[in-house]
């Protein structure tokens, strides 16, 4: 890289990571997160605070009743949902809600995409009998948070990235590399570091496009990678571009799935999607997720 290029890059990094502009977390969300720092947090207290926030409540209930999660249905109280989902997933919902709300009119459909990935990843985690299902779903919910920060901090560059995606059919990753020389997975990792998220969730955010390079939670990361590809491939949601990311061959090998497993998985995912009203609204021709 030229000296001028390096200067631009460091300028972009300064603007991206300037602490004072970091998305603020609404007070009520901050209070819940604070309470949950204590591992012996009171479920009642947390539930009562969540109930005060309608958007948050509806997301918590939607996730716990998700047909992909499949374990539970007809959960109607926040208290029960908090117990069933666990603290990581509740924190993930709060962080993604806080952050995605800020970018809501800028990145329509990103929450939907993250929600779909999270539930599909939960379905796969269950299939693999992984005990880290809660962390996997949380990681999937947060895997694209870097996109939000880029959109918020670098408005002009974001427009260039979008234009490159639309006109050249580039993946968002390639477009980000071209315009700002940093990608949303690295930006997301920085945010996850700032929030002090567990290493498994950081791995998922940082390596969701290249699980083969992950030295920590490879399988969990590979699951979110595959979920991202399947969700995009089916066209259930929109995350800034309609294009399916490149499959990471090493990541695929980690999962050791046969062709026959793949058929079963996709058939089952599509059946659940088509049977569920909450999901069917996401099936579209690759336009807006609304």
């Amino acid at each position, binding site marked *: 890289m030229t000296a001028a290029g390096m200067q631009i890059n460091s300028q972009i990094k300064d603007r991206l990571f300037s602490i004072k502009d970091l998305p603020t977390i609404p007070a009520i969300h901050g209070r819940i997160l604070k309470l949950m720092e204590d591992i012996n947090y009171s479920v009642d207290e947390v539930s009562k605070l969540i109930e005060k926030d309608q958007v948050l409540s509806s997301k918590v209930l939607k996730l716990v009743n998700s047909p992909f999660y499949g374990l539970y249905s007809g959960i109607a109280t926040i208290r029960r949902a908090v117990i069933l989902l666990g603290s990581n997933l509740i924190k993930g919902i709060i962080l993604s809600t806080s952050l995605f709300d800020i970018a809501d009119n800028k990145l329509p459909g990103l929450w939907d995409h993250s929600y779909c990935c999270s539930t599909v990843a939960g379905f796969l985690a269950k299939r693999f009998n992984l005990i880290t299902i809660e962390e996997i779903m949380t990681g999937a919910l947060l895997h694209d948070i870097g996109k939000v920060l880029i959109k918020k901090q670098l408005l002009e560059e974001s427009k260039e990235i979008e234009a490159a995606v639309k006109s050249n*059919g580039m*993946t968002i990753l390639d477009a980000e590399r071209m315009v700002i020389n940093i990608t949303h997975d690295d930006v997301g990792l920085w945010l996850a570091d700032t929030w002090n998220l567990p290493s498994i969730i950081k791995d998922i955010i940082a390596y969701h496009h290249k699980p083969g390079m992950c030295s920590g939670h490879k399988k969990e990361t590979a699951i979110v990678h595959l979920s991202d590809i399947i969700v995009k491939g089916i066209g259930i949601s929109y995350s800034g571009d309609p294009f399916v990311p*490149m*499959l990471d061959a090493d990541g695929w090998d980690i999962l050791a799935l046969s*062709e026959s497993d793949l058929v079963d998985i996709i*058939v089952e995912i599509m059946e659940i999607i088509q049977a569920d009203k909450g999901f069917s609204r996401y099936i579209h021709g*690759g336009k807006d997720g609304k």
Partner: protein
Amino acid sequence: MQKLDIDEIKPSMVLAATVKDKDGNILFLKGVELTERHINILHNRDIKKVVVEGCPVKRENNMSGSICNEIDRRFITAGSNPVVLRIRDIIKELMI
């Protein structure tokens, strides 16, 4: 592979995917060659769609071309790894 409505299912068709009921219990494993008895059970268990091998039902559907094009377009950036191409084709076969 083709996804068919239960009314299109005929004996001797072969299941390409495991059939589960609403509660997730397995009814028939993939690879089973369907008989009248199987088809009756599918009806009784209120199964609406079944995925079978091959493409036994020819459709005159104007939509299928545009659905295929749309799916191809989404996968332009996905690379040429055989697995991702297979994912694309499975999705196509299940959507049309």
